């Protein structure tokens, strides 16, 4: 009797694992097809310029305060931490270099991406999810309007273009935060700090961060739209979609950050 029971358990476990893998693959396939369809509308008229502008302002302008504050405080903390850490082996002079490299290559795009995921990814998922459960997406169909073209493409395009702009601001403010602590608290001369910053900075450091930002903007808006578009089950379903959008965007940002870093900086 024992062996068949044990075999049943193994089979149940395998079946559960298989179902999980199939569901995951189905999800990945669904997102990929959804993204492909949304991108195909970028070059197919009619274009919804007004909706693009609205989404762009929502992402770029209204996310500015939260991204700016995050960048300033990150730059300040980075300067303090690297100063106290590097002091252990008399390398305090590298603070400016560390701050600018960390901000432009890594922390600017990643933190801006995570902030925008919390703000915009959740908002898009909630808005589109509510439209789904109140039949507004079906109404778009009956009004001869492609819902993906109308709701998704302008948002994804806006996110992909807006996040690099936000990261330019985050880079500047992050470096300023480091400079502020460096000159006001750590005793660096202002000119020397800035000279160390710009002498060490390469164009590729900034460009690589902007490429990452565009990728993160795409991910955040895509996942927000996808989770909202596929939501169901009333208010609870919309709540789940909102949570899923933020969690999926955040994890994907960190995973894609590694992949892009490996591609752009591995030797």
């Amino acid at each position: 009797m024992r062996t068949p029971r044990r075999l049943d358990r193994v089979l149940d476990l395998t079946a559960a694992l298989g179902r999980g893998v199939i569901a995951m693959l189905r999800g990945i396939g669904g997102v990929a097809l959804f993204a492909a369809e949304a991108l195909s509308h970028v070059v197919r008229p009619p274009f919804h310029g007004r909706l693009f502008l609205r989404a762009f302002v929502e992402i770029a302008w209204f996310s500015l305060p939260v991204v700016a504050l995050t960048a300033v405080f990150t730059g300040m903390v980075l300067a303090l931490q690297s100063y106290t850490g590097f002091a252990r082996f008399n390398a305090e002079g590298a603070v400016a270099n560390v701050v600018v490299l960390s901000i432009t290559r890594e922390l600017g795009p990643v933190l801006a991406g995570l902030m925008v995921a919390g703000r915009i990814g959740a908002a898009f998922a909630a808005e589109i999810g509510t439209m789904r459960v109140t039949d507004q997406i079906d109404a778009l169909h009956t009004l001869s309007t492609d819902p993906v073209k109308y709701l998704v493409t302008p948002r994804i395009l806006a996110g992909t273009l807006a996040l690099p702009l936000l990261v330019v601001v985050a880079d500047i403010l992050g470096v300023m935060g480091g400079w502020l602590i460096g000159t006001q608290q750590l005793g660096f001369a202002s000119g020397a700090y800035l000279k160390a910053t710009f002498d060490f900075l390469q164009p590729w450091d900034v460009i690589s961060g902007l490429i990452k930002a565009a990728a993160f903007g795409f991910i955040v808006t895509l996942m927000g739209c996808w989770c909202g578009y596929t939501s169901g089950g009333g208010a609870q379903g919309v709540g789940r979609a909102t949570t899923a959008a933020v969690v999926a965007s955040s994890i994907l940002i960190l995973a894609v950050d590694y992949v892009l870093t490996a591609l752009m900086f591995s030797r």
Partner: protein
Amino acid sequence: MSEPKIRLRGLAKSFGPKLVLDGVDLDIRAGHSMVILGGSGSGKSVTLKCILGLIAPDAGTIEIDGRDVATLSRADRRALNDRIGMLFQNGALFDSLPVWENVCFKLLAQKRIARGAARDRAAEVLAQVGLAASVGDLYPSELSGGMQKRVGLARAIAAEPDIIFFDEPTTGLDPIMGAVIDGLIVDCVRRLGATAVSITHDMASARRIGDDAAMIHKGRIVWTGAAASLGQTGNAMVDQFARGEREGPIEMELRK
């Protein structure tokens, strides 16, 4: 007999193990108003969504003007949708847009009208459903349920479609407002000369807006006839439903 405007044959649809449509056959005459009756979960809404192209049926055919809609290209399907209006049960108005943009949404999306002219057109259509032009500047969240239904109706007729669908048009309204909406539906459909398909379980509404009626039960059409005869059709199921009687061939699936 002339060709029906809409012809359904053997329409079937399941969601997982649940069979919702089990071979729906129905003809809807051009220029007439058909009311599809049925209890909750009988398959009314799914039938409507299949005709609208919102749900793909598992089997069967849907012909509109003699053309099988399953064989239409995306462009042809869009062209067909241009000729269709739809009033959703809860209005499904776009809450990010003011009423006038909701009303002229299709015309604006297809660039059949400039934004400036759309306001005037919206005022014209709002007047047809008994609303003042000033309502055009409000947002859907600022409207009562009855007003939302009227705006939904205005949106459905703004592009002058030749087929209009109504999904439970009087649900959630008081009896007087229900009668007002029914009256507006009849007026609009007659003025446009459109073919109308309504789904409802409101018998008074069915008699007011329907020329023809069909009863759907467990995913099948069990009766078709004149809407005026509802309540005295001689079909036990329809008569039980029309009179709202507990006892009869229709048994509610209640867990005991």
